[in-house]
């Protein structure tokens, strides 16, 4: 019984994703592409959210880890014929090392807020230039995944369906990780670090170690997304997977959906990606980058009118209306105690 209760929290994500697994029955190819895009960004934003949302350390450089994942698997496949199913883990291992190093270097010297953001953006920009000048990595032209038709062993498919299920499964794992954090010691410690570092430290939280661990976990997950990204688009370029454009997009969905919430990044991606894609498809020829303008607009709107994101807003609405009976009960209980 106790075991059942422990795992009940995972029921909602499992049901939601099980239902999502039936989506391909209703979606045409183009919409499948949008669904996959949604899941890619939901996955990456959920990974970013562990560091940015839960631990409150706003990294603007997650392109670094995405790039490492994308390049590692692609390079190993091209050069050594290594399957991306293994390459993905190699990329994650490299990202873990990079994540540890960035975390240690930044947090050891107490970098916070804007300063941490600046360091991370500088590092991912530096990576763009390093890779652009790295011959083995294809330089500025990037690397193309060798076309093999449908080859499950090499994570390549002509149909979108398998890609959909792979990224759906990855996103499920990411959401389950976030859900797991929500009610575990490590998750609580991340929140303590975000809310008040000094108090957290005084209450036995190793804040430096906690932040580094969060950075490593987030980096590792992001790298796996990078490998999938490379396999799906069959191309990696320095600016495409590294750099500030992708780094900013990653966190956009988390901020708009709701920082530090399990569902925020997914909700943000579900709402924003289709809108941006339609804008790109409809306006892209006349106004290039119209979808980026849209991202900017939505971000400003969110910051102004719902700083806690969509899920945050929903939560506070529910708290206002749902909690009323609770509140009145606790008031009457304390009054009863006083009289």
């Amino acid at each position: 019984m106790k075991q059942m209760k422990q795992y009940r929290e995972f029921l909602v994500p499992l049901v939601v994703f099980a239902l999502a697994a039936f989506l391909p029955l209703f979606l045409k190819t183009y919409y499948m592409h949008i669904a996959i895009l949604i899941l890619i960004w939901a996955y990456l934003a959920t990974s970013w959210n562990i560091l940015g949302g839960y631990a409150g350390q706003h990294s603007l450089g997650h392109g670094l880890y995405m790039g490492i994942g994308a390049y590692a698997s692609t390079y190993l496949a091209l050069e050594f014929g290594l399957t991306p199913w293994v390459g993905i883990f190699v990329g994650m291992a490299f990202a873990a090392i990079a994540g540890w190093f960035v975390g240690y270097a930044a947090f050891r010297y107490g970098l916070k807020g804007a300063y941490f953001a600046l360091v991370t953006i500088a590092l991912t920009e530096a990576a763009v230039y390093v890779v652009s000048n790295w011959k083995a990595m294809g330089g500025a032209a990037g690397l193309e995944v060798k076309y093999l038709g449908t080859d499950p062993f090499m994570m390549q498919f002509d149909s979108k369906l398998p890609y959909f299920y792979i990224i759906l499964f990855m996103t499920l794992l990411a959401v389950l990780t976030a859900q797991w954090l929500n009610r575990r010691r490590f998750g609580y410690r991340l929140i303590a670090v975000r809310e008040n570092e000094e108090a957290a430290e005084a209450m036995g939280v190793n804040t430096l170690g906690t932040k580094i661990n969060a950075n490593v976990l987030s980096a590792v997950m992001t790298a796996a997304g990078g490998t999938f990204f490379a396999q799906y688009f069959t191309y990696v370029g320095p600016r495409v997977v590294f750099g500030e454009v992708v780094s900013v997009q990653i966190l956009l969905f988390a901020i708009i959906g709701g920082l530090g919430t399990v569902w925020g990044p997914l909700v943000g991606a579900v709402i924003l990606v289709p809108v941006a894609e339609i804008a790109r498809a409809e306006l892209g020829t006349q106004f290039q980058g119209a979808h980026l303008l849209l991202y900017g607009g939505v971000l400003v709107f969110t910051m102004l009118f719902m700083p806690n994101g969509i899920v945050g807003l929903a939560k506070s609405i529910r708290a206002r209306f749902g909690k009323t009976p609770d509140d009145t009960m606790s008031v009457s209980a304390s009054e009863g105690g006083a009289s």
Partner: protein
Amino acid sequence: MTPLLEVKNLTKVFGGLTAVGDLTFHVDRGEIVGLIGPNGAGKTTCFNLLAGAMTPTSGSVHFKGEDVTGRKSHQMCKLGLTRTFQVVQPFPDITALENVMIGAFVRHGSTGAAERKAREVLDVVGIAHKADTLGRDLTLMELKRLEIGKGLATEPDLLLLDEVAAGLTPVEIDDILTLVRRLNSEGMTFLVVEHVMKVIMNLSHRIVVLNFGSQIAEGTPAEISKNPAVLDAYLGEEEYVA
């Protein structure tokens, strides 16, 4: 018997200013020791040094017989020395229960055990009915109780209380004093920094008086209140205020 906390020649220099100079005192198990002194006497710096928030320039701190000089805050907390803050430091976006759970996680790995411990602590500090209220929505009195609760949840051997009575009404102060005395009678040791004289004189078994970073007197409240050096440095001035 070795004292629970033993401070020897503790010194902290900021640039040219000696905030704490050559401070030596000890705290035995089961005691309530008061640390007093006029503004700027070095009380808070002393707390920061003991709790690991700052590293001393020289001198040593022994806790439970072990040299802990220069340990970090979270390490001191794990060893059993926890501090509260003069200005309350709640986690605003999580509930009172979760605030306390963060502390309970020091000794309990599982969420269930930490939650049980946290509920027990909320009950002890008298805000069990506020368990589900967010940190930001608590009143000052509740926050003061929460602050003690957060410390208690780490199950310390020695709890450092920094100005726990500041900003409270006399009735609320009495409530807090009753709480501290009860915890002490159950075996908890306290080191208390306090500005409110009534609190320190009522509560402490022993008092250490600081001025300009150095100890100028030590003794029971009765002795301290008659000590000419103390009256000169501190109590004499305070009479106008009180």
